Structures are given as structure tokens and as C-alpha cells.
């Protein structure tokens, strides 16, 4: 449960790259305030490619780094700490895993490696995470399929060159079998760009008799659950790690504020009422980070309890990031309510990441179900 030398080196590389170039002034605020439709810099995504990071999960035989969820999580913690907008989670961690070992991997990996192609994952059809309840209908028609239905909360969906889309080819919503993944190219479905609370972009996608060739199928017809789960679990562990970064970044600002802000003639960090809350928060962040590491390592080693650990990590990290951001705004007082100060940005980011791939309640319930109660 400690990092290898290689992992520490990757962590340092990612930390210095993102601290130098990924901070809120250069990225998040810049793209938000210039009303960028992607919400991130396309040149900046190319830099991820130059560093090899876009290929972090792509097998070495196909030109990638061939690393695990553990390494992706290290990068994501730094992304979270700097609130860096990028397609890293959606593309390099989640979607690339869904197309692993298929012709779609061959087709898209070169573009991803170059930091040019963006891929997204379309799962949700309602406001809450429910992958088993996929209802988007894919009906056989001639040599292919016709899709009817809708998707929402497709993170980076409006920028994506290809969206890995979960559809139902048999069974009923709630069944794990009968789900099929399709590669849906840009422009195939009617796509509405949605600005989320944290100024990141997601898409609502409407499928009105969208015709796809048979070769748009990713993997097996009716057998989409396995690659979807692989992508979702990597995405959940990754989002959890990003949440730990959000918590740590927000806490760092808050602890600094406690060391510098004066009221009643003394530094507010001298007040025990605040010291104890800060110390509690510190411990919770350490625990969340350990839970994320456990989840990532268990996914990488194929541990039979990996799903359980992933849900523990997502639930714990969501809860802790929310605590860090809430405490951050409160302890900053009035300045914490202003757009000028960065602390509020952490609160917004935590809300979006907390929801992505299942919120605290979804994952607590999954822990209970996986533990047979």
C-alpha cells in the first residue's frame, strides 16, 4: 500500500505539469470566462498526449503506457487538486477501457495517443446513475441497428469524436444481459451541449431512428455489461481519486487561510473550534486516499472483491470531498461566497464528480448489496 518508485516518479511528473499549467487561472477560469464550447483547451489536451498521459490505459503493444488504474488515479488526484478541465477521465480512463481488445480500439487509440481524439461514455438516461436500467432501444434493421431513446450527463459528449453508448438489444431495463455497446460517431445523434454547475460540459443526446452499421457494435451483442462495467469501475475509481484531489486542494486553501486570516486580534487557526474541524478533515482525506488506492490496486490485480472496494472508494471520496468543500466555504467566511475566490470552484467540482458514475447513496447501497444485506 505504498507507491513504487516508478509510481512516485509518475506522480511527480503529473504534479509539476498540472501545478504549472493546469491551475484554475490558466485553465478552468480561462475557458469558462471565454465561453469555450469544449470547456477545456484542445492544445492543452495535446500536451497530455505529448507526455504520454492520454495513453495511460492503452496497452503497450498499441503504443500506450499500458499502466493500471492505480497510475491513472495518481494523475487524477493532481487533476482534482488543480481543478483542471480535460477529457482525461472520460477518454483516457473510462472510454478507452470499454473499447479495449476490439477493432474500435485499433481505430481510435492513435488519435487518443496523439491528444487529438476525444471519446466519451453515454450511460445515464435519468438524473441518477442506473446502468442496469439502460432502455435506449437498439433494434436490428437490415445489416445494422436503429437506435431510439436518449442519454444525458454524457461528460465531454459534445466534444467527443466518438461516444461509447450503452443500448438495449434484448431483455428489459434492470437486466444486465441484453445491453450492447455502440460506437456512435460525432453528429450521428442530436446533441445538446449542457453547461454544468462547475462549467464543465456534458451532453444530452437524442436518438431518433439513428441508423448504425453492424460494425458499430463494441464487443458482443447483448454482452455489453462486461466492457461497460470495466469502463465504469475504472471511471469510478478514477473519479474517486479526482475527488480526493479536490478535497486535498480545497483543504490546502482552507488550512492556509486558517494560518493567515486574523479576527479578534488573532489568527483564526488559533481557535480550537476550527482546529478540531480541520484535524478531522485531514484524517478523513487520508482515509479516502487509502480507500482509493485499495480500489485501484484491487482492480489492477483482479481481486475478487474489487467491485466492493471501488464502491467503498467512490462513496468515501464523495463524502469527504463534500465535507472538504463545505468546510472550506464556511471557514473562508464571506470571501468563500465570492466568485473571485477559488474555494467555491471546489464546491462546484465536487458536486459534479460526486454524481458521476454513482453518488454516495448509490455506492453505499452497492456495498450493502455486495455484502448480501
Amino acid at each position, binding site marked *: 500500500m505504498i507507491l513504487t518508485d516508478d509510481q512516485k516518479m509518475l506522480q511527480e511528473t503529473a504534479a509539476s505539469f498540472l501545478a504549472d499549467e493546469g491551475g484554475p487561472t490558466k485553465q478552468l477560469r480561462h475557458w469558462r470566462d471565454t465561453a469555450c464550447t469544449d470547456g477545456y483547451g484542445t492544445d492543452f489536451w495535446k500536451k497530455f498526449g505529448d507526455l504520454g498521459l492520454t495513453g495511460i490505459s492503452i496497452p503497450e503493444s498499441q503504443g500506450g503506457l499500458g499502466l493500471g488504474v492505480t497510475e491513472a488515479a495518481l494523475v487524477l488526484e493532481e487533476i482534482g487538486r488543480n481543478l483542471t478541465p480535460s477529457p482525461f477521465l472520460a477518454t483516457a480512463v473510462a472510454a478507452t477501457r470499454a473499447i479495449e481488445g476490439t477493432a474500435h480500439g485499433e481505430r481510435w487509440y492513435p488519435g487518443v495517443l496523439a491528444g487529438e481524439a476525444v471519446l466519451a461514455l453515454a450511460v445515464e438516461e435519468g438524473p441518477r446513475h442506473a446502468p442496469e436500467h439502460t432502455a435506449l432501444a437498439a433494434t436490428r434493421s437490415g445489416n445494422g441497428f436503429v437506435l431510439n431513446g436518449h442519454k444525458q450527463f454524457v461528460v465531454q459528449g459534445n466534444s467527443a469524436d466518438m461516444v461509447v453508448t450503452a443500448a438495449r438489444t434484448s431483455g428489459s431495463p434492470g437486466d444486465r444481459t441484453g445491453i450492447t455497446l455502440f460506437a456512435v460517431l460525432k453528429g450521428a445523434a442530436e446533441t445538446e451541449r449542457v453547461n454544468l454547475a462547475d462549467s464543465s460540459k456534458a451532453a444530452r443526446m437524442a436518438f431518433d431512428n439513428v441508423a448504425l452499421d453492424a460494425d458499430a457494435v463494441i464487443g458482443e451483442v447483448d454482452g455489453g455489461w462486461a466492457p461497460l462495467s470495466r469502463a465504469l469501475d475504472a471511471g469510478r475509481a478514477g473519479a474517486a481519486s479526482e475527488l480526493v484531489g479536490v478535497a486535498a486542494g480545497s483543504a490546502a486553501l482552507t488550512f492556509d487561510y486558517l494560518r493567515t486570516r486574523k479576527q479578534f486580534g488573532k489568527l483564526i487557526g488559533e481557535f480550537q473550534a476550527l482546529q478540531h474541524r*480541520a484535524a478531522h478533515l485531514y*484524517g478523513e482525506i*487520508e*482515509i*479516502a486516499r487509502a480507500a482509493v488506492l485499495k480500489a485501484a490496486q484491487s482492480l489492477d490485480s483482479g481481486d475478487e472483491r474489487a467491485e466492493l472496494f471501488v464502491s467503498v472508494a467512490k462513496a468515501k471520496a464523495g463524502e469527504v470531498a463534500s465535507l472538504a468543500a463545505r468546510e472550506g466555504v464556511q471557514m473562508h467566511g464571506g470571501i468563500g461566497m465570492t466568485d473571485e475566490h477559488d474555494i467555491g470552484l471546489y464546491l462546484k467540482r465536487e458536486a459534479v464528480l460526486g454524481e458521476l458514475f454513482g453518488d454516495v447513496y448509490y455506492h453505499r447501497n452497492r456495498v450493502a448489496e455486495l455484502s448480501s444485506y
Partner: protein
Amino acid sequence: MTDLDTFRTDTRAWLEAHCPTEMRQPILSEADMCWGGRNWTFASDAQKQWLEVMAARGWTVPDWPRDYGGGGLSADETRVLKEEMARIGARLPLYSFGISMLGPALLKFGTEEQKRHYLTQIARGEIRWCQGYSEPGAGSDLAGLQTKAEEKGDHWLVNGQKVWTSYADKADWIFCLVRTSTESKQGGISFVLFDMETPGVSTKPILLISGNSPFCETFFDEVKVPKEQLVGEINKGWDVAKYLLGHEREMISGMGLGGGGSLGAAMKPADPMLRAEIAAFDVDALAFQAMSERFAAMWKAGEAHPASPSMMKYAGTELNKRRNELVMAAGGSDALEWDSERSKTGKAPRDWLRSKGNSIEGGTSEVQLNIVAKHILRLPGA
């Protein structure tokens, strides 16, 4: 095969051959734990045999040096031994404050002679220790302790009172904080060891709200302690005391692990509101388990902050209190039975009441948070 794989294979075979079947059963009560010491009565031949074979191999303290009765194992080998013991459900051969608290302090601060003398006895389970720290007027403010040790030529003369001395009535020796100077609060404390049968030492058990008496009041009336039983330097006992507390807190944080299983799976809560609370608890408990694994690895690798046992102690004990609250809630009126035909020992309510002490003993939760604020977060004036 790596050396570690070979070690695992050999260890597995050795444990299979030497761990008695009775010592592979879960620990259900205090009586199942072997504490050793000169007055110990073994609960069974198996308990005695298990202690003897493990001690002979140095595996009661696997990572201590062989010269002091340890097994001389590396951190990885120690972990493998733990995993292999857990695999067959082997009990610890010996529970001992000598192992978990005094030993690490002696390894760091003891003289060569003290190490050879005390550590080997601790490793073999021949000496049972208690801890003389808290006093009626020195609880959270431990450094305010008043038990006095006067220098009298070849010995110290100790007078005063300790409280919350765990198992003082059963212990052979005590490691004790005494005041050797009033010039400075923390800088006037010394760390001494002495036999509980020394004339002038007496103990009185304290009845707790749980109905049990794991703690005592301990009185010292003109107790003579030979000079060579001082650990570390005179008036520098606070350094020894703090180092030992780190190990104590690490040990106490282990209660956050519970039995290791899912509370929800054990309780099967039918009420949806209770199920939700228990699921939230299970998330926290599993996350803490991961933290505990990570902390152990970081501590051994020297990557952990020296004050991090305070964070672990706080989190682990608060978690154990929550676990007991939920056991009581899920148990309903069954869990209120103090003694009955159904529940002869009233385990649920007694454990629940006992757990209230977890966030007090070894330094309160509030003291741990103070330590984190001061030493890790470096907050002003903390």
C-alpha cells in the same frame, strides 16, 4: 520463486504442523487470550504449547532482533507471517503491553543490558506489564503528573498515585512516569520500571459502567526503585513516554477494524433507515481498513508522519463507538439483556458501554485532534 515465496511456503507448512487446532478458533472472550506473566494460569495445554513453540521461534515478536528473543524478520516477512496466521485463523500466541507498548520504547531508549534482560522475558511471555501514566490530577494534561521520585543514593523513593492502570492487579511489573524535578513540567519527568511486588505498591480495581474492572487505582507508598531501572536519561522521560504513546495509539486504533467482517452482513437489518446507516458505517469501516493497511506499510517504510498514530487512534476509536451503537440499535431489546437465559454474559450492552472509554484512554479524541492540528497541520497557537 522469490525468497519471500519460499518463506511463505515454509511458514505455511510450519504453522500447519505446529498451531494446535484449539488455537485456530475465534477469540470469544477475555479467557481465550493468553497474557502470560509469572502468575499466569494457562486456559489449556494448547494455549501453553502454542506460546512455547512460537516463543522458541521468536515469533511472539517476529520483527524484533533475534538477540532480544525476536524472530529477526523483515517487514515483508512479518506481513507474510501475519497473513499466513490469518489464513488458518491462528490466534496471537501472546497479548502483551510489553510487546505493543514497552518493547518498542526499550528498543529505542533502553541500554543494551536492559534490552537483553527485559525484552527476552517479554518475548517469552514471562513478564506481564502495566502502564503507570494517568493520575487523578493528570488525565489529558498528562505532563502535569505529580507522582514523586526522590533520589536516595542507589535508588529512587517513589510516592504518589496512578489511575486507569490497566490490569495493575494482574501485572508483574509497571512502566511508570514519575516526577524527578519540579523545575520544568515536561522536562521534569522520568521513565522507570519496577516490580509490582515491591513493598509499598498496592492496587484497587475500578468498577466500570460495563460491570467489569479492567482498570485499577495504583498507590505508591515509599517504594524503592533501583537506579538502574531508569529508562533513558533522568528528566527526559517525556520523550520515552511520547514515543510509547505513539505505539499505544497505533495498537488502540486497531479496534477500528472490528472483527474485519461486514456489520450489515452480520446484523441483516430489516429496517431501511437502519440499513442505510449501517451501509454508511460499512463504507467507513472498509475505508479505515484500507487506511490501516496503508498506515502499517508507510510506518514501516518511514513514510508516515510521526504524529499520524493520533489520526489513526481518533478515527479507529470513533469508528468502534459507532459500531457498538449500531449493534445496539440492530439488536433492539435483545441487546439490552444484561444477563438472561438467552444472553448469559450480556456481551452487547457491556461491549457498548466499554467502548465509550475508547475515545478517552490513550489520550482523548480531543487531545488527538489537538496533536494533529499542531504537529501535522501546523496551525497557529495549537
